[in-house]
């Protein structure tokens, strides 16, 4: 394992310290907990948006704490959901009385820990609701399974629900809009390499020099299938086809595109992929309203990327374009 770390058991704590030191104008730490809240929080008069999950997905989620996005982010151990105690601290630190919406990625662990935190908050009279993000079309969404995973599409929920909250909408409204985003966003990813959880010291799986894994999750979970490595065009087409089929895109539809790096992919490759994605969208007569490109929801140093498409309507478009100012996402 080659990493710029000290003690593998202490990576989350040291990372959070490093974040606060880098961005004191954006975030502060809830003393004694792995929770970062807005430097000026809790912000009066607005619904608080909180998110979190296992660490290792940076800049998710702490990088999105700031104006127009999250009020707090809760960090679990690497790839492990945070405990209810931690989430509960996040809820308390973010709440200003207008209620709290938790953005939860659809993993058994996350669901249960956030749910238990909500029960704790409820017992203290804090209004809490949650939105479950399940954008990964790699996984079949059947009633017999836990359903789709939440992956990079979560960024769109942070951005759009964040704008809604920032504009002062009610908890009910912010939740309604979040649900619309979840219904309208689909993601699929692939990887060229695995990644190594610091405490584990070795990669979760191994890919041969000419192999790639398609449809994998953001925790180094194996994907849906493994194949010989293909060209940027073929890979992008495979992901786009799966996504478009699922979301049923039609000519003249407007979308926002997120080309998300998994941590170890050079920006050059993301742009090459975007070039292909853009061509495929144009071929179908679909209009790209906005493209977001870079490392947003990562899996440590994994090489690979995901594509997310968000089908827009006027309301989502306006909120997507609304200003945001956070360490990892800024928009004038």
């Amino acid at each position, binding site marked *: 394992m080659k990493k710029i770390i000290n003690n593998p058991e202490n990576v989350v704590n040291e990372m959070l310290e490093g974040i606060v030191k880098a961005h004191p104008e954006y975030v502060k730490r809830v003393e004694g907990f792995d929770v970062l809240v807005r430097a000026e929080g809790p912000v009066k008069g607005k619904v608080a948006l909180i998110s979190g999950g*296992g660490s290792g997905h940076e800049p998710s989620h702490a990088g999105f704490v700031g104006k127009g996005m999250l009020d707090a982010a809760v960090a*679990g*151990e*690497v*790839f*492990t*959901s*945070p*405990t*209810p*105690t*931690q989430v509960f601290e996040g809820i308390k630190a973010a709440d200003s009385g207008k209620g709290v919406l938790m953005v939860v990625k659809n*993993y*058994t*662990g996350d669901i*249960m*820990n956030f*749910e*238990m935190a909500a029960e704790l908050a409820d017992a203290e009279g804090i209004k809490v609701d949650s939105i479950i993000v399940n954008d990964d079309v*790699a*996984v*079949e969404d059947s009633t*017999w*399974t*836990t359903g789709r*995973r939440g992956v990079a599409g979560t960024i769109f929920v942070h951005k759009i629900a964040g704008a809604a909250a920032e504009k002062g909408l009610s908890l009910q409204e912010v939740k309604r809009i979040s649900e619309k985003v979840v219904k309208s966003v689909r993601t699929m990813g692939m990887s060229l390499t695995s990644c190594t*959880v610091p*405490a*584990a010291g070795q990669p*979760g*799986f191994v890919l041969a020099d000419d192999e790639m894994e398609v449809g994998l*999750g953001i*925790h*180094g*979970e*194996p994907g*849906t299938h493994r194949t010989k490595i293909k060209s940027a065009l073929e890979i992008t087409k495979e992901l786009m086809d799966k996504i478009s089929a699922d979301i049923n895109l039609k000519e003249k539809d407007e979308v926002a595109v997120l080309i998300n790096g998994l941590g170890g992919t050079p920006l050059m490759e993301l742009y090459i992929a975007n070039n292909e994605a853009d061509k495929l969208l144009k071929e179908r007569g679909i209009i790209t309203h906005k493209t977001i490109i870079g490392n947003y929801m990562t899996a440590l140093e994994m090489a690979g990327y995901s594509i997310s498409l968000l089908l827009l309507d006027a309301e989502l478009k306006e909120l997507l374009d609304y200003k945001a100012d956070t360490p990892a996402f800024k928009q004038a």
Partner: protein
Amino acid sequence: MLTSDLLIEILKNITKVIETNKQYLCDIDAAIGDGDHGFNMNKGFKAVAEKLDVVKDSDCGTILKTTAMTLISTVGGAAGPLYGTAFLKAAKVVDGKKDLDNEDIVKMFDEGIKGVIMRGKAEQGEKTMLDALIPAFEEIKRALDSGSSSPEAFIRATKAAHDGVEYTKTIRATKGRASYLGDRSIGHQDAGATSSYLIIKTISDTINK
């Protein structure tokens, strides 16, 4: 008869067994999950062990509740809320009691498992810890009903839990992280079922000592 002292000893032994099997549980989880189950469980039970001194003279309810709260506040992942809820529900059954009879034991188990089901919304056959826990529980009931002693019942439960783990190899996961793999999860044993088996085995080993 299960005393609070014995309960403390059981929990200490579970801590040791989990620590010994940390890497083993991670490796199992890595095959079809994310490879952290051993770390998660070890972190939790190490924290539990540290709390045991404080509650060593308390009743079984307090001991189990402390265990539950510690697991909930340290483990995270899927295992934290599930085991945490199991212990919490079990604690309620024996609130205030220092000595537990067979009926208490059955009730504790029953409530604990119901807690897991309530929290995780899974059932038997979905390749989870329930596939070890439920057969073990049923075996305990059967054994005690037919007049066996609790040490004997736990020996039989351990065997049932072990069979449950083996059974998880033959099925497809439909809950938890492994469910994302679809049929690729077949052939691998479930990590949570394995830790449940280890816990039941440790109870058995401790009360049979």
